[in-house]
């Protein structure tokens, strides 16, 4: 498998990472090298093998649907790039 330059740009867009044409070219080389390494997997017959998502075979714990954390909004928003009146500010989304 070999990624085209267009695919590399498409992946960068999926990952929301701006990429220049020059960067896309370097990235293409690196990613194709990595995928060459990964391709070794494809020859393995894994029919009937249960996918393993986690090291321990345990199911996700559930807890009571109750508030357990105190209000620390001010502390958490102190590290935000831009806030106003307790809200996170981002560029206008809806016209």
């Amino acid at each position, binding site marked *: 498998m070999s*990624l085209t330059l267009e695919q*590399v740009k498409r*992946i*960068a*867009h*999926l*990952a*929301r*990472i*701006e*990429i220049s044409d020059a960067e896309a070219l370097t*990235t293409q080389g*690196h*990613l194709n*090298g*990595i*995928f*060459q*390494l*990964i*391709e*070794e*997997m*494809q020859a*393995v017959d*894994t029919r009937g*093998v*249960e*996918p*393993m*998502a*986690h*090291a*321990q075979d*345990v199911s*996700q*714990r559930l*807890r009571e649907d109750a508030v357990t954390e105190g209000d*620390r909004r001010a*502390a*958490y928003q*102190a*590290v*935000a*790039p*831009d806030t106003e009146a307790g809200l*996170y500010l*981002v*560029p*206008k*989304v809806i016209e």
Partner: protein
Amino acid sequence: MINKSLKQLSQALAAKQISSVELSTLFLDRIERLNPTLNAFVTVDRKKSLKMALAADARIAAGTAGPLTGIPIAQKDIFCAEGWTTTCGSKMLANFVSPYDATVIHKMHAEAGLVSLGKTNMDEFAMGSSNETSFFGPVRNPWDTSRVPGGSSGGSAAAVAARLAPAATGTDTGGSIRQPAALCNLTGLKPTYGVVSRYGMIAFASSLDQGGPMAASAEDCALLLNTMVGFDERDSTSLDRPVEDYTRDLEKPLNGLRIGLPKEFFGEGCDAEVMTAVRAAIAEYEKLGATTVEVSLPNSHLSVPAYYVIAPAEASSNLSRFDGARYGYRAPEYDNLEQMYEKTRAQGFGAEVKRRIMIGAYVLSHGYYDAYYLQAQRIRRLIANDFVEAFKSCDVIMGPTSPSTAFKLGEKAADPVQMYLSDIYTIAVNLAGLPGMSIPCGFAGGLPVGLQLIGNYFAEGQLLNVAHRYQQATDWHQRRAAIE
């Protein structure tokens, strides 16, 4: 004083031979002097550290001290610590002052009374095997400053190896505790997945990440591990199991211990001098009463390929939170929300992190999920099953930690695949979720060699015992880098 074990430091503090403030000052002064050469710490805050030391001295005076109260420690900068800048080695978090403590940090500070000396440098978001991907520049290996300390916990390894700290925390997703421990002549332990809480430990690959201790000996690691473990309801994969004392079995004799030697770890691909040191260590174990048996991990050659699907997939999901909206870096100029995301992430992440996010985005995307992600998860099962089979005929598995000693700065930086192969012996352990250690076992060309010990699930106590008995019979772990 700087070369003493944690037990000796604890005794010195208890006997009032030295105060925690004096001890911490000793290490802080050493950091000030040597860190410009090594770049092991990215954040040091003398005032904060000494405040903790003062509180520890008060606990010691009041008779409420624990075994490690007042002992200084270096924290990998992946652990959020309230009021401390927590960067994860990234520009993205260069100005992030954490508003909360990771569970490990809380346990070490509030419960155990350890004194944090600062935050250690690391590969960006723990993605790397040489500490060269850090936004804050590479760390240098105290044994040879033209060489890498390993990664991603490279700053922690260099700090302990140069005795800028008596011990440190690390995290290990594919070898990030064991490989730098090997390259810097330290003892490092990656616990069984789920034993140490991941809460507040900045996530790279959630199904593989595990925190653990890095120190000068197995005994030091056991004492540290005692402070780090425990069920945590804030970590959804934390395991609820009885708390152990990991120093309990340290002295147990090794008579009858069955050591499994995977034939795949003793073939081609490993430096000959490294292999000589590893074989000599195994011979030493035989003298201590152990027997060896050949085992096989037939799918181990697939661990690197499977890992470079699973880890990037999880990383691409985890790192989607860095969007410039709620915390961390935001690009200075953009015209709309999408541009804000794309520019923030393009400017805030380094090249290796971007590569892994993109691999992850691709293998999870429509049409490729089955061929890559599911296939990798199936291979993960095969790899885990290999260990189950191997442990039927042995108690502990041994082999090299790293195929080479510390390499030169820049040597592998241009070729991601060569860098990935540095972790060829360590990655399978993370995929299976098993505990693993690296202990010093000799030198090749003047550089440290690590012996990897792999245990069955929850066999940390046994691994520490196996490591400790070896360290009583040998002195490799006591050799110190000549850096002053």
